[in-house]
């Protein structure tokens, strides 16, 4: 076989491999979306056939009767507030650490960034009691604060680097012109940091939206379940009720919005997430 023939064969094979993995990723997702339109008996008859009638009512049943809608709302409240508060807190800390030298500023930086090194499981029991003792169990506020502070280590790390990369001259010129420190922060530095804040925000949003362990421990009241937790709970208890079509619809409801957001921001998300790994 000549080299070009081997090359072509190899080229064709790589296309084949790439395609196979693509199908392996995509097919289960497609299957669950299609199944969410079937009846229970159709689901068990054959995983391959399309539904005879496309049952949109599975979605309304999942949304209201299985409370996916309420869980979705809970997630939206907790995660949105969590991201915004996380960004506010982290930006304040990062700005101070990047712009000012004071006794202990280095140590403070390591206190914040060090949080990335420790396994979360270790702090789980004490965290449960901290939240309980503050009377914040099963409250939005409790989980919001836990999410916001939990995201601070990475955000402070990222934003400190960002603020350090900004030239100090602009801030100094503004100070000379009589602008206050607060004015410099809100009128100059934060607007400049917007791209950094957006990418951190997307990163944190995904992370918090997908969190499972913390709501499992801190949101034990069914009315306050978040969407991942609620869906997992439905799936576990489903064996007794068996509304599989509704459960598939619930699964689709929790998959599709995330994939839609990803498709819109895929470049920022995949580079942001992989950059996080390489920090």
């Amino acid at each position, binding site marked *: 076989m000549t080299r070009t023939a*081997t090359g072509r064969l190899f*080229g064709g094979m*790589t296309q084949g*491999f*790439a395609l196979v*993995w693509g199908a392996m*990723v*995509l097919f289960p*997702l497609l*299957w*669950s979306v299609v*199944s969410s339109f079937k009846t229970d008996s159709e*689901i068990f008859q054959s*995983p*391959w056939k399309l539904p005879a009638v496309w049952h949109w009512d599975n979605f309304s049943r999942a949304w209201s009767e299985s409370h996916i809608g309420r869980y979705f709302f809970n997630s939206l409240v907790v995660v949105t507030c969590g991201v915004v508060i996380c960004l506010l*807190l*982290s930006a*304040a*800390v990062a700005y101070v650490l990047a712009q000012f030298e*004071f006794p202990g500023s280095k140590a403070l930086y390591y206190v*914040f960034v060090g*949080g990335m090194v*420790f*396994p979360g499981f*270790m*702090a*789980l*029991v*004490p965290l449960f*009691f*901290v939240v309980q003792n503050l009377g914040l169990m099963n409250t939005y506020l409790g989980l919001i604060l*836990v999410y916001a*502070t939990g995201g*601070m280590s990475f955000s402070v790390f990222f934003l400190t680097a960002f603020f350090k990369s900004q030239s100090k001259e602009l801030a100094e010129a503004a100070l000379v012109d009589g602008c*206050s420190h607060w004015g410099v*922060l809100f009128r100059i530095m934060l607007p400049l940091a917007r791209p950094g804040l957006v990418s951190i925000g997307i990163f944190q949003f*995904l992370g918090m939206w*997908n*969190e*499972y*362990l913390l709501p499992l*421990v801190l949101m034990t009241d069914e009315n306050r379940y978040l969407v*991942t*937790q609620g*869906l*997992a709970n439905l*799936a576990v208890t489903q064996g007794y009720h068996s509304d599989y079509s509704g*459960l598939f619809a619930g*699964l689709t409801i*929790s998959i599709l919005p*995330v994939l839609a*957001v*990803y*498709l819109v921001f*895929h470049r920022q998300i*995949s580079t942001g*997430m*992989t950059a996080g*790994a*390489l920090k």
Partner: protein
Amino acid sequence: MHHGKYRFVFGLLLIPLGLYAVFVVSPYVQAFPIAFTDWEGLSATYRYIGFDNFVALFHDSVFWTALRHNLFLLVSLPTIIVTLSLFFSAALNHRGGIRGAKFYKIIYFFPAVLSIAVVGVLWQFIFEPRGGLLNGFLRAVGLDALAQPWLGDGDTALGSIIAVVVWGGVGFYVVLFTAAMAAIPKELYEAALLDGAGSVQAFFRITLPLIWNTVQVAIAFLVIGALDQFALIKVLSVGPGGPNDATQVISLYMYTNAFAYGKFGYASAIGVTLFALNMILTVLTFRLTRRERVVY
């Protein structure tokens, strides 16, 4: 001026630092003393019992089973995921990128943006013995004998869960590795081609050494991540952790001890052990995978 600066710094730091101290620093610090108590249930009283929890843990056969499973995950997950990811990255990057490489990368990354718990629910359906996708597929292609209750059988349960972790993990590392591969100068490959090197040789002689730093980070990530496996096992395994502790892991065992049995002291001891293992592994992974940095 100076006075104003310190007031500003103090004013900005007060709330973030306070919240961070309460919700992040204090739980980590408290984990250590709680590990030395006999704290159980909802009682507010507890005694310090020295190393008793750790001694009990040492004699706890479930803990050792869990640890063995974690060690198995820790070897198998990095090996499988890194190998597959490198393979698919090389395939996508073949000759400077095959047709549709960008599109493939977007699809491969899908599972990485999904919640692990949601991925767990999806795969619960796939593994479903009756109407599940996997057994349906096996029956459709005539491999009826292979169809089985994947998660219900102790022999296949852990392997099935590993397959799900691989399914969810490969895309992320493909994106990571292809980004690193894109930074390799094309001239290197052209030179190698002139010297008569094939694609496979070029991969092992050029690509792999040049992206080794990234591979090292990936291995470290997966090794440490193997200790954190929780959501998939909680959602997918029967029990969870079963059947008969066949899928038991340290984090799940800690969670169960704390929030199902109320053994907070014991659970914290498991948490502190987990922390120690984590530290040892971090150092070991970077030591073992360290190589001379290749400059190009």
